[in-house]
């Protein structure tokens, strides 16, 4: 949930690298931040609040040395405060540690250390680590061994980086929490996410679970179970600047506008109009299973619902599960089942744990993800990349669109029959259709009427049901207003009691078939309760007649309509949040990539 950065090298002032890295990692968590720089003794600065507070503190001091670590935190244990911020240290400030993840046995370790007289200065689980390291050092271990023996005591998930007084080295370890090395000309970098050091290098080494790394100015040594491990150096194609806002006020709006481009990337080389087929190179060795289970969280879960609906439509039994409920729901995994994890970051802890569970029960697994080399990509039997490029806004937008297309590509690969020509045409027209919405949307004007509303409801049927859920999720995430999505037909079974003249209802209606007509009946139900109605429609039915406002989308294949409708709802959420002055890219209490369960 948090972000880690580390640097060893010859630049002189490590704080520059650390602060630049923290600022690109800020979206991962932001209720406190801190750095530790080693130059003989350890120099530590940490602050509660957004990164600016730390930047101010750091700018008034001078740091020099060859080694440093930094952290931005998002609370899981203990309220945000200066003292709960990372880095954490031992009692004598000679060991500093940053940690991402959760140490499950921390209470036991803390009790043990306290019995031995150690005084803790924070409420966090992470603080046990520097105390354990210090204890091992006192017992005569060399620094590397002291760190490794401390890590051996830990249960749970962690990416850890540690600096020790008098040592020009960083000691780090990974278990169930991402950690990446950067190989640069002026030193080595360490981060929980590649963009943190992309400004300095594109050559990276992805650490695997159970691995340790020791970084010095001259070398990096990766080891596992006491043996050195040779690692491949990979070159990432993203540029650091791609994380800039390119003239937009918010990453979210930039990313909404990037969708024509990100969809082109997702489709490129995968749809052959001349031959009339859809092929995903990565999936050529994937056999059609007898059933499919999807596991995902949040926005990705909505993409999973969509994917499952398409598969069922094609005759393959498929179910979408919330990853955090998967273990509890404990669905039987029949023979020849494919379990598909949908996760933008490829690091979502709940999804990873569901995938590992499925894997251990013998299912074939597939990751639908945006991040090359992520845990999901490496641990699953198959991977389909959605190629959306980096997404910085906490609220997922372009990655959701690309997940829907990734799902379509996957489904077309799994179904035996060849793709229908109309779908291929619709996929090729998709970038242009999304561009048409971006060029013409009146969402900004529509939200103006609802600034004083009490609650917001989103309804849809069939594949528009996940769109209604996603519309509501996006809306609540960034506006902080109450928003709920419902299957249109469910309104009258309860939620209708909430509908008043102060609760606008957004209804997604496309085509002119049975689903459209039924949804129009549901629109009339809320109309009768005086609720303002906004219809997202392609104009084929007469839904607009019953609406107070209309958000138009181009007419297309019914399978693509949910994606187009969602773009309008993204804009609704964005403009509402903007009018309300919300922190759009970094909504309160939320983090981009949720790496704790």
């Amino acid at each position: 949930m948090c972000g880690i950065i580390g640097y060893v090298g010859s630049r002189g002032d490590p704080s520059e690298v650390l602060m630049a890295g923290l600022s690109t990692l800020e979206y991962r968590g932001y209720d406190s931040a801190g750095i530790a720089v080693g130059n003989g003794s350890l120099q530590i600065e940490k602050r509660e609040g957004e990164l600016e507070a730390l930047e101010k503190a750091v700018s008034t001091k001078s740091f020099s040395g060859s080694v440093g670590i930094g952290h931005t935190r998002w609370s899981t244990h203990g309220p945000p405060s200066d003292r709960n911020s990372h880095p954490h240290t031992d009692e004598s400030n000679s060991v500093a540690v940053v940690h991402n993840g959760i140490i499950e046995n921390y209470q036991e370790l803390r009790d043990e250390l306290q019995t031995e007289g150690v005084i803790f200065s924070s409420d966090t689980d992470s603080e046990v680590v520097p105390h354990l390291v210090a204890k091992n050092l006192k017992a005569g271990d060399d620094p590397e061994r002291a760190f490794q023996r401390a890590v051996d005591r830990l249960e749970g998930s962690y990416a850890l980086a540690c600096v020790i007084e008098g040592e020009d080295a960083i000691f780090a370890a990974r278990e169930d929490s991402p950690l990446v090395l950067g190989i640069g000309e002026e030193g080595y970098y360490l981060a929980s996410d590649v963009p943190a050091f992309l400004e300095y290098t594109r050559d990276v080494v992805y650490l695997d679970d159970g691995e340790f790394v020791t970084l010095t100015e001259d070398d990096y040594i990766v080891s596992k179970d006491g043996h050195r491990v040779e690692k491949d150096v990979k070159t990432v194609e993203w540029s650091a600047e791609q994380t800039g806002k390119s003239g937009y006020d918010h990453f979210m709006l930039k990313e909404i506008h990037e969708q024509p481009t990100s969809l082109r990337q997702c489709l490129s080389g995968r749809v052959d109009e001349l031959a009339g087929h859809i092929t995903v190179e990565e999936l050529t060795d994937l056999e059609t299973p007898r059933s499919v289970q999807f596991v995902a969280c949040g926005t990705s879960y909505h993409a999973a619902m969509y994917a499952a609906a398409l598969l069922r439509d094609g005759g393959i039994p498929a179910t979408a599960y919330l990853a955090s409920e998967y273990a509890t729901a404990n669905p039987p995994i029949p023979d020849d089942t494919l379990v598909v994890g949908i996760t933008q970051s490829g690091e979502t802890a709940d999804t990873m744990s569901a995938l590992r569970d499925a894997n251990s029960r013998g299912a074939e697994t597939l990751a639908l993800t945006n991040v090359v080399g992520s845990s999901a990509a490496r641990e699953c039997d198959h991977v389909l990349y959605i190629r959306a490029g980096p997404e910085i806004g906490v609220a997922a937008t372009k990655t959701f669109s690309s997940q829907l297309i990734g799902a379509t590509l996957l489904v077309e690969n799994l179904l035996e029959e060849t793709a229908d020509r109309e779908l291929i045409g619709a996929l090729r027209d998709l970038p242009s259709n999304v561009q048409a919405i971006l060029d013409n949307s009146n969402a900004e004007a529509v939200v103006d009427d609802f600034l004083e509303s009490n609650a917001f409801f989103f309804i849809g049927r069939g594949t528009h049901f996940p769109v209604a859920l996603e519309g509501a999720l996006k809306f609540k995430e960034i506006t902080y207003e109450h928003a709920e999505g419902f299957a249109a037909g469910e309104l009258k079974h309860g939620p209708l009691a909430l509908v008043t003249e102060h609760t606008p209802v957004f209804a997604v209606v496309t085509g002119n078939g049975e689903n459209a007509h039924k949804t129009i009946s549901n629109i009339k139900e809320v109309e009768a309760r005086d609720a303002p109605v906004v219809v997202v429609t392609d104009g084929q039915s007469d839904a607009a007649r019953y609406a107070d406002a209309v958000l138009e989308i181009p007419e297309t294949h019914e399978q693509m309509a949910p994606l187009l409708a969602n773009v309008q709802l993204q804009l609704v959420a964005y403009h509402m949040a903007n009018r309300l002055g919300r922190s759009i890219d970094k909504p309160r209490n939320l983090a981009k990539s949720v790496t704790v369960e």
Partner: protein
Amino acid sequence: MNVTSAVVLAAGEGQRLRPLTKHRPKPMLPAAGRPILEHVLDAIIDAGITDLHLVVGYKHERVQDYFGATYRGHSLTYHHQHKQLGSGHALLQAESAIDADFLVVNGDQLISHHTVSEVVDAHSVADVATLAVVESDDAPQYGGVRMQDDHIIELVEKPHSSEYRLLNAGIYAFAPSFFAEVEDTARFDGELSLTDTLSNLIEQNELVRGVRTEGIWRDATYPWDLISLAKTLLVRPGSIAAPVVDENVYVNEDAIVHDDATLHGPVVVGADSVIGPQAVVGPDTAIGQNVSIDAGAVVSTSVVDDDTRIGPNATLVECVTGQGVSIDAGTTIPGGTADVRINTTVHEDVSLGGVVADRTHLGGGTTLTSGVLIGPNATIHPGSRVKTNIGEDAEVSN
């Protein structure tokens, strides 16, 4: 002198290019498969200037979405001109980011990196303003210039007199003090023009240096000029992004060209585009990205922009399409010279089959009379004969 920063003016719509500028500013219109502005940025970077500032305004999202935060690895800083109140006003939007002598370039005209270098080299510490001057028959329609030795003695906007043989190419080097000169310039009709500031300097007997250059300079004033921009660039080495597969035939790696299709150079086919069997494309034709040209269709001397669909056996000659256009089976856009009407002005003897603006749909078997402008977003029903211009969102059946 050494100049490190460039301000590119990319905020204007380019009204005479309507209806193609409905959804994007002129700098984003295509010149042989890439936006005009991309060629401009190439010229600046090739001249060694890498601190790049873009002033954006009209439909600025399109510029930002296309280029993002960097171009060729150099970061782009965007400055927003919220109201388009002239080139001087546009320049002032970047003032806070500039603290040394700097380059200013129009983002909507094709230029050469040699010209940029010549202007920068001629500009000295003592100069307030230096500008590139090109000899051209078109001078009367642009900024006409008269020179004495190496400085400008007169600068007139659209002099409409054939006495003027030299034009202001819109490539300037300025001292930082030039910003103050712009601020002190009187607005004319609410607008603040760079050339007014330059004229004032000349009147005050300040030295405005002129650099005569032979470098390429091309402007698209009207929609059909996009065809000649493409023609120029298709035979100019280094102008086309796609790999060359034959003499003057460029095909992107991600395009699919059927074995039985014919490409006549000069021609470029963009990424993800598909050319069907028996289709004939070129010469003098630029196909954008994600375009489909179906079996047996013929496209020559044309600019076909991104996401456009051309149905089986359609014929397009001397045609300019916008983005996302659908031209159904058997449609004929025959080419030829015509009198083209733009608003109330008639342009005589223009070689133009037709202009079909963004997301317009021509139903199957439609025939266009040469020189008509259609769209954007218009719908022409199958079998129609279109003889006059058709406006935005219009629906036509006959």
